[in-house]
């Protein structure tokens, strides 16, 4: 997997990872993705420590973040990066099963850029992932210090 990724996908469920990757593959975005299986790994990646200590110190263009995660949950990850001077500009999209108002309010008050509820319907799910990937990794101009679009 590429060490230099435009999309950081933080997702604990391997099946969700596979389905998301399937969707992204259709738009040739799969190579741009790094997967972190829990909140701790995601922070390791962002802080270039542990197994990611060798990677170039660039921020991803977007982080797709699940809320329910082992060890460090999504909201804690969000809180951590929003309080860090170097990381706080990273666009974060919460990608979750939760429709709950309190989760939405918590996420938005922590400064999330978008909140997407994973649709149960596969086509809708694939579409959502594709559109998110295309918009944030290709169309959107990421903040300075992020991985640039491949020429």
């Amino acid at each position, binding site marked *: 997997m590429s060490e230099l990724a435009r999309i950081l996908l933080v997702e604990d469920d391997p099946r969700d990872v596979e*389905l998301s990757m399937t969707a992204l593959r259709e738009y040739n975005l799969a190579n741009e993705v790094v997967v972190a299986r829990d909140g701790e790994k995601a922070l390791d990646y962002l802080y270039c420590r542990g197994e990611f200590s060798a990677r170039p110190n660039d921020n991803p263009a977007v982080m797709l973040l699940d809320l329910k995660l082992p060890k460090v949950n999504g909201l804690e990850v969000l809180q951590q990066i929003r309080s860090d001077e170097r990381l706080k500009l990273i666009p974060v999209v919460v990608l979750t099963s939760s429709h709950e108002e309190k989760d939405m309010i918590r996420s938005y008050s922590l400064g999330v850029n978008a909140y997407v509820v994973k649709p149960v319907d*596969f086509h809708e799910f694939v579409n959502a992932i594709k559109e998110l990937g295309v918009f944030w990794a290709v169309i959107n101009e990421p903040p300075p210090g992020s991985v640039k679009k491949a020429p």
Partner: protein
Amino acid sequence: MTIHLAEATTAVPERHSLARWNLDLQNGRSPTRYGFSIVCVAVALGVALASQYCGVHDVELPLFELAIVVITWYAGVGPSMLAVVLSAICYSYFFSEPLYSFEISNEDLPSFFLFTASAAITAWFVAVRRRIESDLRIARDHLQVEVAERERREDEIRKLNQELTKRARDLETSNNELESFAYSVSHDLRAPLRHVVGYSELLQRQASSSLDEKSRRFMQTILESSKRMGNLIDDLLAFSRIGRAETKKALVSLDQLVKEGVAETGQDTTGRDIVWKIHPLPVCYGDRSMLKLVMGNLLANAVKFTRVRAQAEIEIGCVDGEDEIEVFVRDNGAGFDMQYVDKLFGVFQRLHLPEEFEGTGIGLATVRRIIHRHGGEVRAQGGVDQGATLYFSLPKAQDAAERTANTL
């Protein structure tokens, strides 16, 4: 109640044993009381004669008076009158000139009458006092019983209150548990469901060319069932959310809600002939978004169940009651059997086959939950193939605030 009274009466302490004794005597048989009277007068006479013998004169009248007082006090009015008569006789016989005869000299006549009168008055006074005292005692006993009763009731109320507080706490705890249960079940159910759908789709994509007709139908069924389960979970989540959400109450125009509700059914009404009869509706007091959900559910139901008619008729109106308004939505659709009307508002209860009419059966349960939270009631009327009328009542706007304050 009677048992407690009896207990309380015996609980009154017997403080004055002397008073108790005179009560016993007064309640005793007449011979004892009159005998006591005679003995007392005899003792007074004896003492007076003895004093006279010893040279002490003029003590007889006070002694007789004393005897009369004692008799009145202990034996009552009858014996005291006897004592007055006896004392008068003794006085006239032993102490007034001429001695040892019942004649009374003219000189002694006034003092004799004075004695008799004063004795009678004393007896009367004492009797009145006795009566007042015994009334007071009865009143006091009564009061004591009442105080005991009141204390007992207060204890009971306190106990009931404690029980109620505990129950409320238990209920809140179990309610919270139930809510968090519904929350996590719904969320944790959704992920595997998404995988079932996702992988089935992938499989269908991958293998659709090599699958035969039957296998394709199996795949399709898996997908449809999963989708249905997804809808059920979503509905369940939404339903549990209504129970938890805080209501934000304000004046709500029902007319406006109906207008919006009708507009939102647009997608399902295209190409259909629907006659809407909308009567003016009042303004009510409630949570706008919740009441909108109520109206939307009822209108969507009416539209759905009139699908079997060439021309659908949907009527919306209201009956103005004394302290509440009742809104109804009437249709000429498929209707339902009144035998099962109790099931109509249950969660996931359906009275039609899924092939006839789609839906999860949560709509009317949601309606009922919302209306109950507003302090109102729901009911329904209908017949098979005769259409249905669904009613919901809401407290009137002016007194709604205090009426619903307790239910929220």
